[in-house]
């Protein structure tokens, strides 16, 4: 029997967006009704990530090349110890080898309700190789031992840039959720006056509305495998309006992460935006005379 979360509403922030517990607390105080919070991916060693520019929004696509800045596990624990958050926390973790994941999960396990295993960041640090090469075997080796590391639900966050069907099949018996997906690409933006790449990290993962159709296909492809194994889907990719949530639900997702769409919004605006989003989904369910459970995966095609 797989373990699933009951989130109310089933909306979370995408990992790397808002990022810190104090930001989540501020949003809870303002009344923002997220169903759970996903702090920035925790890594095995302190690092600053890339210098600025770390993002570039050309009006159509968001690129980011943060390259996973992270502080020490101890200073993360200090933050977890002191938090007054009411909603559950989904921990995100990254590493360069299976032991990294296990070590972090062991140390931080008691502070979170589920673990999102980030094996899909497409970004590189300047001069470095890719932080995580998403090869099937490597991902399998990372994910498989984790059932012995934690009792919490395990979410594999996969990349839309890899052969995600083969990867999903190789891990499906060891996870409770598949998260589809991380950023697309990576993509390159060039400044025509300096003739240099805009991002200090050269290329960056693509996110926002622009990637939605690709992630939608990924959700539906993986749903066809996962639904037979009691594995659920989290959708991340270009969710910006209530219709996107409905669309992802029809494709097979049951939790929805909002990332790039929160851009340019202050605390009050995020609160209003998120709360209206779920109300609108509920109105749709009423009008269409259906339920959320019936909607999930009902794609007729």
């Amino acid at each position: 029997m797989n373990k699933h979360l009951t989130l109310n509403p089933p909306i979370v922030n995408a990992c790397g967006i808002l990022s810190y517990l104090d930001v989540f607390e501020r949003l809870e105080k303002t009344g923002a009704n997220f169903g759970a919070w996903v702090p920035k991916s925790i890594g095995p060693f302190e690092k600053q990530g890339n210098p600025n520019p770390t993002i570039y929004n050309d009006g159509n696509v968001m690129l980011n090349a943060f390259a996973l800045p992270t502080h020490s596990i101890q200073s993360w624990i200090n933050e977890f110890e002191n938090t007054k958050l009411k909603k559950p926390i989904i921990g995100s973790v990254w590493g360069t080898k299976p032991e990294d994941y296990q070590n972090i999960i062991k140390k931080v396990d008691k502070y979170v309700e589920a673990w999102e295993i980030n094996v899909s960041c497409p970004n590189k640090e300047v001069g470095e190789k890719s932080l995580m090469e998403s090869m099937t075997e490597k991902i399998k080796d990372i994910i498989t031992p984790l059932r012995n590391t934690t009792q919490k639900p395990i979410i594999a966050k996969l990349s839309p840039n890899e052969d995600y069907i083969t990867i999903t099949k190789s891990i499906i018996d060891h996870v409770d959720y598949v998260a589809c997906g991380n950023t697309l690409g990576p993509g390159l933006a060039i400044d025509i006056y300096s003739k240099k790449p805009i991002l200090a990290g050269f290329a960056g993962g693509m996110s926002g509305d622009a990637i939605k159709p690709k992630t939608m296909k990924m959700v539906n492809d993986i749903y066809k495998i996962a639904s037979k194994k009691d594995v659920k889907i989290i959708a991340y990719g270009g969710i910006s309006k209530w219709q996107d949530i409905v669309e992802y639900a029809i494709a097979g997702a049951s939790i929805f992460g909002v990332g790039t769409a929160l851009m340019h919004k202050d605390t009050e605006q995020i609160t209003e935006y998120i709360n209206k989003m779920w109300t609108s989904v509920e109105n749709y369910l009423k009008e269409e005379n259906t339920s959320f459970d019936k909607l999930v995966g009902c794609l007729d095609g």
Partner: protein
Amino acid sequence: MDDKYKCTKIKEIITHNEFNKTFVLDHSFDEAYPGQFAMVWLPGIDEKPISFSAQNEITIKKIGPFTKKAFELKEGDKIWLRGPYGKGYKALDKPYYVFGGGCGIAPLKFFIKKNKATIKTVYLGCRSKTDILFLDDFIKLAEKNNIELTIFTEDGSFGKKGMITDTDEEFSDKYNYAICGPEMMIKAVAEKINIPKQTYVSIERYMKCAVGLCGECSFSGYRVCVDGPVFSYDIVKKLPHFGSKRRTKTGELIDM
């Protein structure tokens, strides 16, 4: 809305002193208002938040690698900016007292120029006369618009000798108060005024995205880039990070 860079040229450079320069730009950011900032990019170097000191002006203090590189720029060189970002100082119902310290004087010059009629009094506090950016502008602005101008220097080289908080003026709730400067100065002045609901202060934190996404600029959970940089002191004074904690480039929360 996009966040594309405007590549513009430096029309003029004003060297205030060893550590402060103002860059007058070819392009005017007509939407910018005082207290807002731009992300200033030097390709191949870095990108940092800098406040507007006019619609076509930024003023930079040399303190580290990025600002050092900026100081090497010449008139005619290209410079890249995205923005304007954040919430600035608003023109409100009641006239303003304005308090500027150090580099914080520059955005306040912009505020005063934009809102001449609603400024009652300007206080500036600096270490020494050479540190008072835009001194001539302030004197002229004050004369022309009937604004009271009081300047404190720590070494007494101009105006009154002492700290900006050494004033013995009594502050009343018939006015609004705008403060810009180092966080400790903000705290001291705001406590002295003691009318938090009508006091607006500008906060700085390390920034990466500047569009509210990454959370790096969190100031007790407020994202300075979208919720600020200008906040009501009523909010700021209750925040545990005020005058006490900031996040580094790794995201770690450390003592200031």
